[in-house]
């Protein structure tokens, strides 16, 4: 298994990571799925709904990486996705900045799509990270949402 987790405050380059993953899986992968999460300028569900000035992510160095590695191991026991890359930003971000990258490579597309969705759903509920948002109404910690909990719960149902 070839999975890598990177936590960083700096911007990431999707093209560079994609090329690295292509090289790592060359000849064996038939599909690469890439998901990038961006900072929205408004957060009606988890935040106060006002224009977002900054989004700040706090982490627990070591444990954050490990919590994400556990998610990747779970994905790799469910689907044949030998190659996974996850990059998660921390620190202060502005609207429209890239916040998270999930890239999965597999022999066939169905496993790559499913694993990428599974990983994103669990990043929301299990990765050790905390978001706070600054708007004109002040700085607030985002709430974990029932919607996110339901999305990761659905993978626990036997028919998935």
């Amino acid at each position, binding site marked *: 298994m070839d999975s890598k987790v990177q936590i960083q405050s700096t911007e990431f380059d999707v093209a560079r990571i994609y090329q690295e993953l292509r090289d790592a899986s060359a000849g064996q992968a038939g599909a690469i799925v890439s998901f990038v*999460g961006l900072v929205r300028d408004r957060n009606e569900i*988890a935040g106060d709904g006002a224009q977002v000035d900054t989004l700040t*992510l*706090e982490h*627990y160095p*070591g*444990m*954050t990486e*490990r919590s994400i590695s556990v998610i990747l191991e779970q994905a790799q026991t469910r689907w044949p996705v030998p190659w996974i890359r996850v990059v*998660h930003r921390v620190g202060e971000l502005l609207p429209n900045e890239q916040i*998270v990258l999930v890239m999965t490579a597999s022999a066939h597309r169905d496993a790559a799509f499913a694993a990428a969705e599974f990983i*994103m759903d669990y*990043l*929301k*509920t*299990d*990765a*050790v*990270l*905390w*978001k*706070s948002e600054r708007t004109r109404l002040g700085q607030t*910690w*985002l*709430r*974990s949402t029932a919607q*996110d909990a339901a999305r990761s719960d659905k993978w626990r149902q036997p028919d998935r």
Partner: protein
Amino acid sequence: MISVKFFAQLREVTGTEGFEIDALDLEGVYQVLADRYPAEVFAQLRGDNVRIAINQELVNGNRALAAGDEVALLPPVTGG
């Protein structure tokens, strides 16, 4: 000594990233926190939604602690 760490809103309500204390188990940590903070702050630290990690591993229930252990109080996560 046991290192106690607070994250996110728990870091804000306590006004610190953490400190070192003497405690034999998690209940001992809570006793120190109950003595140190007002009831409304302690209620947040002890909240049902707060998860505990010892040396970066999640645990449930009371646990014995050894010198050098790191106890972290983690509010609900919101990554992704």
